[in-house]
């Protein structure tokens, strides 16, 4: 009987929303820069999930292509972002995001 229930697109979208919410919560709460970055990755993955769900629903392969590109760009972004973090933390070891407040007005 349970096998007859099929997960619909809406379930995937809800799951993606939850993942996105958890990721955004993490971004706003965690102080370690690397963990913060990982939470950004969570958000990106949530988006990927929703794109693929729509690709299935609409019957359009364009959703998967988009995910492809998102993956590539996310990789590039991680590279650059970690490079920046390395540069900063090399000079200031043990710094958290709260310590990087030179833009304070």
């Amino acid at each position, binding site marked *: 009987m349970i*096998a007859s229930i099929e997960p619909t697109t809406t379930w995937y979208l809800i799951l993606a*929303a939850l993942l996105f919410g958890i990721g955004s919560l993490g971004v706003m709460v965690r102080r370690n820069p690397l963990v913060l*970055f990982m939470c950004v990755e969570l958000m990106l993955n949530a988006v990927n999930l929703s794109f693929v*769900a729509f690709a299935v629903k609409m019957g359009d392969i364009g959703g998967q292509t988009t995910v492809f590109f998102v993956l590539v760009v996310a990789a590039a972004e991680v590279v650059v972002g970690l490079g920046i973090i*390395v540069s900063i933390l090399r000079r200031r070891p043990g710094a958290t995001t709260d310590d990087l407040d030179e833009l304070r007005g």
Partner: protein
Amino acid sequence: MELVVFVIAAAMILVGAVGVIVRTHPVHCALSLILTLFGIAVLFIEENAQFLAAVQVIVYAGAIVVLFLFVIMLLGVDGVEDLRVEPFKIQRPLAAIVSVAIVGLVIAAAVSARNAFVAAPVISPQVAGAADAGAHDANIRALARDLFSNHVFTFELTSALLVIAVVGTVLLSRKIKAAP
């Protein structure tokens, strides 16, 4: 059957996600992230995006998270972060509100539009040629066809982007030698 797979994958995803934001040790966070990524890969396969699942595991879990771990080891930012302390009093309540709002709004939108589109066959009909349809690598064929005909320009730009990113990062993070 699909339901069971979905539930297990969803559990993996959510547990991993919560683990990322809750664990204090960065390495633990990275490992939770891997769990989440694997869950997402399972769901990709479920949705007939096999190529993406493979790429997800190889690139995301295999390269990006490894990169994270390398940096953690390199910089030694594995100090335990104290999650009980929050310097800005308003931050946590605000974060909670924002997250809940986003989640709620998106779920509301998704639920209310659940009957908006006609269900389509799982395999994309955008398959040129009957030879592709039904083949065991139909997904990758369709993806390739779409990528190299509709998005070839973007594809080229993306390769340039990767090169630029690598070069830029190398420049950004080199140590400047002191002048003699």
